[in-house]
């Protein structure tokens, strides 16, 4: 459709933060209960699982926004002609990494959803601590998950920086610079929560 690009790009930016970013933090925080032991994790996971209208919540807060963000995101990756070798500026590297981590995150999410949510949905796996324990017992899968989590949290934190620009919140170079430091802290904090949870399963 003609002249919908502006709307779609703004929607893409918004969905990345609300609801996907919010969901990401919630997901990693719930995972973090694994640090306090299997029972603690199972209790938190079952609380999420038993939320009322769970299917509706999953479809409208998780599945549809992520599918839209992923489809348009792959298109955005495709139309860029990266040039960090000629212009090695910090922001140009962030631009490049945002696209690389977007693709890694997409592959990771598809894999992760397949071996957890889809398997649980088909009844071949049970939602509990041992499901993740078994997956992460394989060192290859463990490091794939570490890469996937770091890639996701980077994409979220750097995406938050561009969200602030795309929505016209940070206009001056100074505010954009401070937003860089602030989103770096977000990256470190969210990564810590996510990685610590992974280590709790091994």
């Amino acid at each position, binding site marked *: 459709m003609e002249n919908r*690009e*502006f709307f779609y790009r703004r929607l893409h930016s918004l969905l990345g933060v609300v609801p996907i970013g919010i969901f990401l933090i919630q997901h990693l925080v719930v995972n973090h209960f694994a640090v306090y032991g299997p029972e603690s994790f199972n209790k938190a996971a079952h609380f999420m699982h038993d939320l009322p209208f769970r299917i509706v919540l999953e479809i409208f807060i998780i599945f549809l926004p992520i599918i839209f963000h992923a489809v348009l995101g792959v298109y955005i990756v495709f139309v860029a*002609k990266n040039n960090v070798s000629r*212009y090695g500026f910090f922001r140009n590297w962030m631009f490049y990494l945002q696209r690389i981590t977007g693709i890694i995150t997409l592959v990771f999410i598809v894999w992760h959803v397949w071996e957890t949510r889809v398997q649980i949905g088909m009844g071949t796996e049970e939602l509990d601590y041992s499901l993740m324990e078994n997956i992460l017992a394989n060192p290859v899968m463990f490091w794939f998950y570490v890469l996937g989590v770091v890639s996701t949290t980077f994409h979220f934190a750097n995406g938050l920086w561009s969200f602030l620009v795309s929505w*016209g919140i940070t206009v001056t170079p100074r505010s*954009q610079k401070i937003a860089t430091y602030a989103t770096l802290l977000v990256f470190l904090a969210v990564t810590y929560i996510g990685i610590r949870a992974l280590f709790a399963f091994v």
Partner: protein
Amino acid sequence: MAEEKLTLIVTRQDSPDSAPYEETFKVNYRKNMNIISALMETQKNPVNANGESVAPVQWESNCLEEVCGACSMVINGEPRQACSTLVDKLEQPIRIAPMSTFPVVRDLVVDRSRMFDSLKKVKAWIPIDGTHDLGPGPRMPEKKRQWAYELSKCMTCGVCLEACPNVNSKSDFIGPAPLSQVRLFNSHPTGEMNKSERLEALMEDGGLAGCGNSQNCVQVCPKGIPLTTSIAALNRDTNIQSFKNFFGSDNAH
């Protein structure tokens, strides 16, 4: 006494459709040469490093003081103006190529029409013509004039488009320069009366949404124009405009 020679490796192209090729020239060195005067030597004596007579190198230039934007080319990998690039500050041999974002007409001459088309598309002017004298326009605050003046330094040279990863053959993004001109004309008290028309042009395909915030433009702009500040300010303006358009507003003019 043997004269000091300068080595130029020029990426040449005989016609818009022919294949590019590199040609080396040894030209006489003088103190304080710029790239234009070095290229002029290849016109005076169009003989390449192998001693063959060749067609003189073609390029565009006008003002020779970095205000017209005509002589942009890629010099030692960096897009910049040939007139303000001093030979004494460059590593040798000097590699000169046309900008890759624009279609090559011949040798170093590129066709920057797409930029002028974009300026038309975003209505980068102030309509004041009418059937009678409208009198003096509203006054402009001095502080605003000062930052708007910086935006008016744009010479449509194309360096920002050359450095932008989102300006390429796969994308229809118009690039940073015409975006910033919208901010310039919207900041003008008379131009502001047509603000929404320009913002709506920016919201069309290939407009502002094509920016991916790599911020290369502001790093390479030879005039130091705060292009990324303009883009962020326009993001705010277009978002507000789109809300006004959808929900309705008496202030959307």
